[in-house]
C-alpha cells in the first residue's frame, strides 16, 4: 500500500510505499492516552506470476477504542462492531449510522465508512470494489484521516506519528534517474534523504480513478521518514 502524508505548510505531501507480504498486520495508529488503535492487514492479488513483485493492499482494518470498550473489524465484506460481548454486523450494502455516546460510524452504501469520535477525530475507510471475476485483483480498503485533533502528542504508528507536526525541508531539486522525474534532498528527523517527485492517488472524491496528488516519494519503505524501520510496525494481531 501507499502512504500519503500531507505536509503543511507549504501544502505539499510526502509519500512512501510499504512492501510486505500478504497477511502481515501493520500498526497505523496507536494513542496510548486515549487507548485508540488502528491496525491494517495486507492482502495481495489473487495470484502472482513467478519472480514478480507481489502487490499488496489493505484488506482488513481493526479499530480499538478502549475507553468505550469498542472494537471494529472492517473487511471488504462487512463491518463488525464489538461492544463488550455484543457484536453488530453491518454489510457494505447498507447506508447506516450507528451512534454511541461520543462515537459514531456512518456507512455510505458500497462506498465508505466514516468513523467519528466527538468533533475532533474523523476517519474515512474507503471500499474499493473490483470486478469479482477479475483474474488478479480483489476488493481492498483505504484509510484516510480527516481530523486528528483529539489524539495525544504520544500517538504512534505509521500514520499516527504524523498526527503531530514534523519539520521537513526539501532542497537541491535536480533531474532524477527516471526520465521526466526530479529528485531532491529532504532533511527530516535528522536524516538527509533522496526523494523523487511523483504522484499518488487520493480516492476520496473519485473512488474509481482517484485524484493525483503530487508528492515527494521516500524510497525503501519510508526509511528515514518514518520513525525506525517499517518492520517495527508489524503487529501480531488485528486487535
Amino acid at each position, binding site marked *: 500500500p501507499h502512504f500519503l502524508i500531507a505536509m503543511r505548510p507549504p501544502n505539499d505531501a510526502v509519500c512512501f510505499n510499504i512492501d510486505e507480504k500478504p497477511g502481515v498486520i501493520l500498526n497505523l495508529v496507536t494513542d496510548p492516552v486515549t487507548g485508540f488503535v488502528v491496525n491494517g492487514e495486507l492482502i495481495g492479488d489473487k495470484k502472482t506470476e513467478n519472480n514478480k513483485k507481489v502487490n499488496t493492499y489493505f484488506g482488513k482494518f481493526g479499530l480499538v477504542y478502549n475507553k468505550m470498550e469498542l472494537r471494529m473489524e472492517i473487511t471488504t465484506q462487512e463491518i463488525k462492531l464489538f461492544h463488550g460481548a455484543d457484536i453488530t*454486523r*453491518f454489510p457494505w450494502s*447498507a447506508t447506516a*449510522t450507528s*451512534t454511541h455516546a461520543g462515537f459514531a460510524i456512518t456507512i455510505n452504501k458500497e462506498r465508505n465508512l466514516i468513523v467519528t469520535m466527538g468533533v475532533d477525530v474523523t476517519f474515512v475507510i474507503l471500499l474499493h470494489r473490483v470486478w469479482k471475476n477479475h483474474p488478479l485483483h480483489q476488493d481492498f480498503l483505504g484509510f484516510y484521516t480527516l481530523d486528528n485533533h483529539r489524539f495525544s502528542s504520544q500517538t504512534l504508528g505509521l500514520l499516527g506519528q504524523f498526527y503531530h507536526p514534523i519539520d521537513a525541508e526539501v532542497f537541491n531539486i535536480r533531474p532524477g534517474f527516471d526520465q521526466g522525474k526530479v529528485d531532491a534532498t529532504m532533511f527530516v528527523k535528522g536524516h538527509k534523504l533522496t526523494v523523487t517527485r511523483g504522484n499518488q492517488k487520493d480516492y476520496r472524491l473519485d473512488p474509481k480513478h482517484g485524484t493525483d496528488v503530487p508528492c515527494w516519494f521516500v524510497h525503501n519503505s519510508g526509511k528515514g521518514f518514518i520513525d525506525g524501520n517499517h518492520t517495527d510496525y508489524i503487529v501480531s494481531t488485528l486487535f
Partner: protein
Amino acid sequence: IADLKHQKKRSVDGHPTKQVKELEIYSFKVDCKITSRFARNVVTSRVVNRANESKEALFDVQLPKTAFIANFSMIIDGVVYVGVVKEKEVAKQQYQQAVARGQTAGLVKVTGRKMEKFKVSVNIAAAKKVTFELVYEELLKRKLGKYEMVIRVKPEQLVQHFQIDVHLFEPQGIAFLDVNATFLTNDLMPIVKKTLTGKKAHISFTPTLDQQSACTSCQNTGLDGDFIMTYDVDRDLSAGNIAIVNGYFVHHFGPANLPRVPKNVVFVIDQSGSMMFTKMFQTKEALHKILDDLNTEDNFAFISFSSSFRKWKNSLIRATTANVVEAHKYVSELHAGGGTNINDPLLEAAKLLDDAHNLGQVPERSVSMIILLTDGDPNSGESNPTKIQSNVKYAINNKYNLYCLGFGYDVKYSFLEKMSIENSGIARRIYEDSDAALQLQGFYNEVANPLLLNVELQYSQNAVSDVTRSTFKQYYDGSEIVVAGRIADNDLDMFVADIRAQDANSNITMTYEVSMSEVDNITQQQQYIFGDFTERMWAYLTIQQLLQQRISVGSEEKKLLTDRARELALKYNFVTPLTSMIVTKPEEQMDQGEFLAEKPVEGDRPHQAQKYHSPSHSRISAGSYHSTSAGSYHSTSVDSD
C-alpha cells in the same frame, strides 16, 4: 388404482360389471404463487357426475385463518358463477331472504386452530361437470426466523390429476426452503420436486393414483394432512427490501446480526381452580423450559394469582443460575385453586416494573414486558372487564408491553385482546391440547429476543400516502416489520426510506434509496409472479391493521376505521370480518338458494357457528365423495378425463 383402470376398460367395452364412482373428482390442483411474502393460492377442483341422475357435489377446502378469500367461482356447463363480496349486513339480509323462502343453503363458519373451512355445494346434472375455483391471499408472517405456508390436503378419494404447484420469488434471495408434509412417507418424499435458484424456487407435488393410495390395491387415499413449506430470505443489517409496483410500495424490514437487548419480564400466572390438573401441569412444564432459556442479562419476576395474588420476590431479579434454580422450585410448587382476580396482579406487575426502572435495577436500554397467562374471566376483586382494562392501561402508561395468553375456551378472548393491544402487546389463544406447553414456549420465544427499540420507518415526505403503521416499540429476532403505502408523487425520481432505531448499545439509522428508473427493472422480475401484488398486499395489510385498531378505540373512531376497512375490502374483493361473499347458484338449483362465505373471527368457539344443511345426497369433500343414493348406474360414454 387397478379398479379405475378396469373401470375405463369396462366402459370402452360397454359391459360394466361393477358399479363405478358416480361423482368423481378427476382433477384437484393447488396453484400457489408467492412473491415478497405475499401468497396467492388458487384451488381448483374439477368434478364429473358419472351417474344418470343429478348429484350434489361439495367443495370443501381449508385455508389459513390469516388468509382473505379473494375470489370464488363455479363453472357449470360452461357458465361461470362468480362470488360477489358484499357488505356483511347486505349479504346477510340477502341470505336471510333466501332462507325465509325455504331455500336453506350452506352458511359455513368453522374455525380450527390455524385453519378455517370453506364449503359450497351444488347439484350437478347427470354426465355434467363442475369446476370449483377458490382464490385466497395471505401475507406470510415471519415467526421464529421463518415464513410458513400450509396447504391442507384431505382428498378422501384418489384423484387422477392431483397437483400442488408452488412458485416462489423473493427479491432478497432465498436463504433456505424446506418442504414437508404430515402425510409424506419415504415413498412419497421423492415425488416432491424442489428447485431453488437464488431468488426463485419451484415446488411441485404430483402423485399418481398409485402413489396416492394408502395401501397397495386399495382405493383409500394416503394424502391426508398438511403440506408445509417453510423458508426465509437472505438478510443482514440493512434497511431491508422495498418492492414498488404500480405506484404502491411494500417495505420488509427484518435485520439480522444485531446484539439482543436485555428484557425485564414479569410472568403473571393464573392459578385459579379452573387451571387444576392438565392446564397447571402444562403451564409448569412451559415455565420450566422458559426459565432455562432466560438470558443471564434478563431480569424477571413471578406473580401468581387466584382470588388474590402472590409475589415470588419483592422486586425483579437477574436471571443468574442461582436465581433460576430458585425460580424452578417456585414454579414446581404452584398449585391451582380459588377464583380469578386479574386486575390486582396486573397492577402489581406494572408497579414491580416501575420500581425496577426508578431504582435503576434494570438496564436503561431494555424491554420491559408483562406476560399474563389466564384461562378464565375475572370473577374476583375487580371483575368489570372495562374497569380492569382502564386500570391496567393507566398503570402501564404506555411504558411496557402486555402479552395476554388465553388458555382454553373459557377466556373472554376479546377482553384480553383489547387489553393487550391497548398496551402495545398482542393476545394469543393457547389451545387446550397435548401441545399446550409447546404453544406457550413458542409464544415466549417470539418475544424472547428483542433486537431493536423505538423503530421508526420514514419515507420521502409528501411523496407517499396511505402508509400503514410505521413505528414499532420493538423489533424481535425472528420477526419482520412490514410497511406498505402508496406513492403519491408521480414525478418521484428517488424513493428514500429512513429507519431510526436503538439497539442494545447505540442509535442506528439506515437509509434505503432506489431510483424509480431502477424500479422498472425490478417490476419486470416481479411480474413473473403477478403484477398487482403490491397493491393487494398494501390493501391486505391496511385492512388487517384497521381491523386491529378498531379493537382499542372509541365508538366514533371505530366507525371511521370500520368504514375504511369495509370500503377497502369491497374494493379489493376480500372476505373479511366486515364483508361476506355471496355465490348465486344456477337458477334450477333455487331450492338450494344462495351461498354465503364469511370470515370467522378469533374468539368464536369452534363449530359454534357452523350451520350447514345438506340434502342427503352424495357429498364431495375436496376430492372425496360418499354416495348415499343407490340408484342404478349405466355408463354409455367414454370420458378421457
